[in-house]
């Protein structure tokens, strides 16, 4: 088999070619969005589309001038950080208890909640929040988004807690440590990286979530994602500003995901695959 090394080299080249093709398909639309956001307004809608142009930030300037972009961004941050914190606060002890007792229904309950269509809860939430005058409040938005973050935290942390040898806990118990103390003093520091991944994933998916804010936020509390919908309606020809908005909205999750991409796989599949 004298030709085996040649075949190997060809297979490797063919694979690299496929990788490049896949990369181009994956990246081109995003690249086009960023390029469009940097085009002078008269060139964004030029046909045929131009690839070479003098880049400008005028679309970004126009966006901040004509819309309360910054205050929408602050709304998004408040809701996202609030719901992530709430998810961690409730999720960390729950994941620990499930891992300890092997009684898994609390974890499954939160996951089932995540699987149902959001519109199912939105209707009663709308009715109930309206009755207590909470439509448009940060509290309503944070509570609704915590429904997204809680199962992420629990299911990302479960395998981490499972990975701690039982003998560590037993030794602490012999020393008279209560379960709660074991969680905060011993187990939590051991799963710190898991907590980091859980926080980032919770942040990303809360930031990205559209449906709840569409109904539960109003003029003053609108999140960026919900406001993006209005940008489309307002300026169907203002492509430059629209793409500038899209780029800015996509930036925080993309940066965070890049930071922890190595550990994301198992978290993204909610523990279904050990990555």
């Amino acid at each position: 088999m004298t030709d085996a090394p040649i075949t190997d080299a060809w297979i490797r080249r063919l694979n690299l070619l496929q990788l490049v093709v896949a990369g181009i398909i994956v990246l081109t639309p995003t690249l086009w969005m960023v390029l469009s956001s940097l085009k002078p307004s008269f060139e964004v809608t030029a046909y045929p589309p131009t690839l070479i142009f003098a880049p400008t930030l005028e679309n970004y300037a126009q966006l901040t001038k004509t819309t309360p972009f910054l205050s929408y961004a602050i709304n998004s941050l408040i809701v996202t950080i609030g719901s992530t914190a709430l998810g961690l606060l409730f999720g960390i002890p729950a994941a620990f208890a499930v891992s300890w007792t092997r009684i898994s229904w609390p974890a499954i309950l939160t996951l089932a909640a995540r699987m149902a269509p959001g519109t199912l809860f939105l209707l009663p939430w709308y009715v109930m929040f309206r009755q207590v005058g909470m439509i448009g409040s940060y509290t309503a938005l944070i509570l609704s988004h915590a429904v997204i973050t809680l199962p992420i935290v629990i299911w990302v942390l479960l395998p981490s807690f499972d990975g701690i040898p039982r003998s560590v806990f037993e030794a602490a118990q012999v020393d008279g440590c209560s379960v709660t103390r074991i969680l905060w003093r011993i187990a939590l520091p051991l799963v710190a990286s898991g907590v980091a991944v859980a926080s980032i994933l919770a942040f990303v998916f809360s930031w990205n979530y559209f449906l709840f804010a569409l109904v539960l936020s109003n003029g003053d509390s609108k999140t960026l994602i919900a406001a993006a919908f209005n940008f489309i309606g307002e300026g169907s020809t203002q492509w430059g500003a629209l793409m500038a908005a899209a780029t800015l909205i996509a930036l925080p999750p993309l940066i965070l995901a890049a930071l922890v991409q190595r550990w994301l796989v198992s978290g993204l599949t909610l523990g279904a695959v050990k990555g």
Partner: protein
Amino acid sequence: MSEAAATFTEDRQRLELAALSAPAVIFTVAMIAFPVVYTVWLGLHSFSSTGKQSFVGLANYSRLLADTEFWHGLWVTIALYVLSLVLQLVFGVWLALVLFHAKRLPGIVRSLFISPFMMPPVVAGMMWLVILDPSLGAANYILQSLGLPPSEWLASPVWVIPTVALIDTWQWTPYVALIVLGGLQSLPPSVYEAAQIDGASAFKTFQRITLPLLLPTIVTATILRSVDLLRFFDIIYITTQGGPGNASNTLNIYGFRVGFEFFNIGYASALMLTLTAIVFGAVLAFNRLRGAVAW
């Protein structure tokens, strides 16, 4: 330690563990279980414009069976679901194999590949809205330069479903690929070595060995995608709101509009509960399938 003291510690421990999961459970029951029960109640009532409610039993459900818009929505949901799922599984397995054979990918390359599904679906919808614009979009320019006829894309009642499926496939194929890649990496290398000694071709090895071993992982990916695809909402609401006409009016979009645009709360509740039953039915069915293909 005496026996009584031991039982005391055990009881205390059980209590502490219950207290640890209590906040998550109470929160979920308050935010989900109670509202779902409320939705069931709403679905059995009819609400007049003055807000007066009356018990109508299963009338909302029999109305649903006679509602052509419901059946149309079901058809759109299923068409979009099947098309997107098949595309994402085929391309996802392909991409996973490509990534698997490219040993030691730099972190930046991995980041780029996960970027589509890490960005908000709303952003994906916005960018494709511009790319697919029928008169000024880059997609039609590329088609025309290749000598192909331009498409109306999202504005065409015929092409809107395939186009939405295409956008979702762009966004979520890398996600399926990552799951399948995880499955590939957990396969024992001895399997491949045995096949190589037997002189099996690369395609035969894939068809006879890799694919069957990957089936559980593929079913897992199917479950995770099914949950999202059957309640398809974001990209459609951003790009077409169910249009043109009602061509992309999925059940989730239809239920949302009945509830929040027409304020027909009773009927919307019935619609949403039906969709939820479909989603959970699919999850349970695929979960059984996963048990059947496990090895």
